[in-house]
């Protein structure tokens, strides 16, 4: 298998080195850059499969770098930032980043995210998934309506029958918020009464299966005080 090159960009050399060691342990080849301009240079001269990018950097900050990379290339970008506000995350993702990890990060989580982004990028690539009529998609989530199976970033996920029904219900209308009662009635087919607990338990289990960090879910979200939804990505 071809070597996969990952560019790590941060003005803090120790962080870059720590990430590099972890990536190399996972079997990736690592390039290092310490500001945005250097990163852009490297991308233009070398083959890079994924970038891990800090936001607050000298010369050219991470968001501007993301914009410049996106103008030319489609490779996955994971933003790594000490800014942890929701607004920062939304801003980073809207600039064209594929994922947003806050510092201080969990090494295992970062590795998992790298893996999933690479898998998506390398195996699915530019396949136009929308052309397949029996496939529901949101970001890296793909639900096949015929086989009733779910894939996350190309990796199949094993779900129970109830979980599958819930995921199918939510994925048919991504972004729509379903109250617990509606989910219960449509999945279980019974009148709902005091079902918040039941539904929540299932939601939590599904999350543990499809989310890299179930505490900060990317796809399956609780809308507090309203219901549940699968994010439309």
């Amino acid at each position: 298998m071809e070597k996969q090159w990952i560019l790590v960009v941060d003005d803090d050399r120790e962080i870059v080195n720590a990430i590099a060691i972890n990536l190399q342990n996972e079997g990736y080849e690592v390039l290092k850059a310490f500001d945005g301009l250097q990163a852009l240079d490297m991308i233009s001269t070398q083959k890079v499969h994924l970038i891990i990018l800090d936001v607050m950097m000298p010369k050219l900050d991470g968001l501007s770098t993301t914009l410049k990379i996106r103008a030319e290339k489609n490779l996955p970008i994971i933003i790594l930032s000490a800014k942890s506000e929701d607004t920062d995350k939304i801003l980073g993702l809207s600039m064209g980043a594929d994922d947003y990890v806050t510092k201080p990060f969990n090494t295992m989580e970062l590795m998992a995210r790298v893996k999933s982004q690479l898998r998506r990028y390398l195996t699915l690539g530019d396949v136009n998934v929308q052309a397949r009529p029996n496939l529901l998609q949101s970001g890296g989530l793909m639900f096949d309506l015929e086989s009733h199976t779910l894939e996350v970033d190309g990796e199949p996920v094993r779900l129970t029958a109830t979980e599958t029904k819930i995921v199918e219900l939510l994925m048919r209308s991504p972004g729509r918020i379903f109250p617990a009662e509606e989910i219960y009635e449509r999945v279980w087919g019974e009148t709902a009464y005091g079902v918040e607990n039941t539904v929540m338990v299932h939601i939590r289990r599904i999350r543990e299966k499809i989310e890299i960090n179930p505490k900060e879910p990317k796809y399956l979200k609780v809308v507090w005080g309203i219901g549940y939804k699968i994010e439309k990505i």
Partner: protein
Amino acid sequence: MDTKSKKSKPFTAWLSFFLAVNLLAVFLITCLSAIAHSGGNLAVLQAPFADYKSTIFFKERSGHYFSYLYDPVGNLFADQNASLDYARWCLNEEGSNVKYYAVNTAAGLEITNIAGEFSFPEAEQAPVWQDYNYYWYFDGQKLQVFDHGQPVDIQRRDSGYRNILPYVNIDTANSAHTRVLLAVRDTLQENPYGHSRYYSEKQSLAVIGWVYIGAGLLGLALLVYAIMRRRDKREFDRRLASWAGRLWLEVKVLLSLPAAFLLLMLFSEFRTVHFDLPGTVIMLAAMSGLLLLGCWWFYVICLDLLVNRGNFFRHNLFNSLFKWYQRYESQYAWQKAMQQRAYLLLAAESVLAVMSVLFLLIGNVLLAVLLAGAGIYLIYRYLRYYNQTITDLGKLIDHIELIKNGDMNTRLELAAESSMYPAAQNLNSIQAGMNIAVTEQLKSERLKLDLITNVSHDLKTPLTSIISYVDLLAREEGLPEQVNDYIQILAQKSERLKNLIQDLFDLSKASSDNIALDMEEIDLARLLKQTLADMGEPINASGLAFRVNIPDEPVNIVSDGKKLYRVWENLITNTLKYSLAGSRVFIDLTVDAQGALATIKNTANYEMTFGEEEILQRFVRGDQSRSSEGSGLGLSIAQSFTQICGGHFAMKIDGDLFKVELQFKTVS
């Protein structure tokens, strides 16, 4: 030195203008009067430079002398002797310049300065005396004038005698016995024994001529200078206008009326001036002076009117009285001033009314009407001022509203004489002060936010390295057992530090109101159920009995669901941590007219030796031992988040009972 010359420049220019106009005016007035006096004979203007004997002045004087001679002998006045003496005295003053002979053979009267016997000559015999070739001759029938021995046609207009003849009042019917001869010497000489009017007139005419020429030229020169320096002159005009502007309109009117009357009088008077040098000159000078004075007065009035425009009329006695009153009023508080104004109006109106009636009774209708008019004007002024005050008060109120709504820049501009002016100024400075305070506060808020963000970043960056390398160490194999223990401790503590920093960051942002909110309509009941379901595992593991009482109907509030989840998560976590083992935890949600009230009650597993306030202070931990994980900020965050989410957070400690109440406004 420089400033002084600058200051005097306008005055110099103006002075030259003033002198030029005066000189030229006097020049023109005298010339015109002379022409008018000579019956339109322009030759009169050349008189000073022509041969004296050919001038109208010489002819006129001769005419006078002749009539002095003729009147007493020919017309036989009552005071004949006085007249005779006067004629004799007048003519003898001339000395040898004249030879005269007047006789009335019927009355036996004779005056003459001819020594010895003299027989009245026939008309054709002239000249009678050598060197006396100019003479007036009356032979009892006809007046004849001879110049250079030749008879002059005195009826001709250009002869210069036509205007003189009316003085020489000859009564031909009763003059058959009268003979008069007046001869004037060819070369006029000074009389050492008397004052020769012929001679002095001749001398002074020559001088006067040059004086006039000089005056005219000087006037022209000054005029040219004034025109060249018209800017400076205009500057002084403005100064004059401002001085005049200080006079009340009434004073100006009072002074202008007699001035106008004087001018009209003078203009008509000029026509009747008797032309008799040098007395006429003084007369003319005096009249011209008065005339010019009047003209200059109106010049200044016109300037005043042009420069000060409306102020010309506004600066009057009434207005000054009002202004004076306003100044007087300003020393009192506003409300007192307003009252006083009304009282004073009443007082003034009563006085005016009484006086008006009194004058009416006396019969002075004009004064009564004037006083009544003043009273009406006073009421008009008062009403206008009152209206203005009301309008300005309205503006003031509007402006307060504006400031309340956050406009910190628009200033309230009122006229300086408005009663609301001081209040408006005060309001403006309050507004400016508020503006500064708000700006300062915004700045400090921004600084605080920047500080929080930067500190958080600067703490997180090294912590990232610590966590990463601790993690690498933890995966290192073949380390001694105790080293793995140490690494485990490092991992735990760095994880705690991470939580602490995040909590601190959240709390700082929340308490400085710099947090982004996502407010929407949510169901508080559902949120509580969701949170309990979400925390189902730790709750079940805790061994505590949760007694939950939440209505099935939705309890709709407007809030930020994510933040509110954080509140409940913190409260429940707190409960799980600090509840007595096996005790019950009560969670209730009730709705009444005031809104929704959510409570959580638990029994503490330790003695709470602190007050409600103390526990909310940052870093105060319930057990005060600071041993377990967690930042100690849980309750503070819960409180801050509740408040920014639009709720009210209250905490009660009663013995071992710990109770938190959250209140929210419901929406229908």
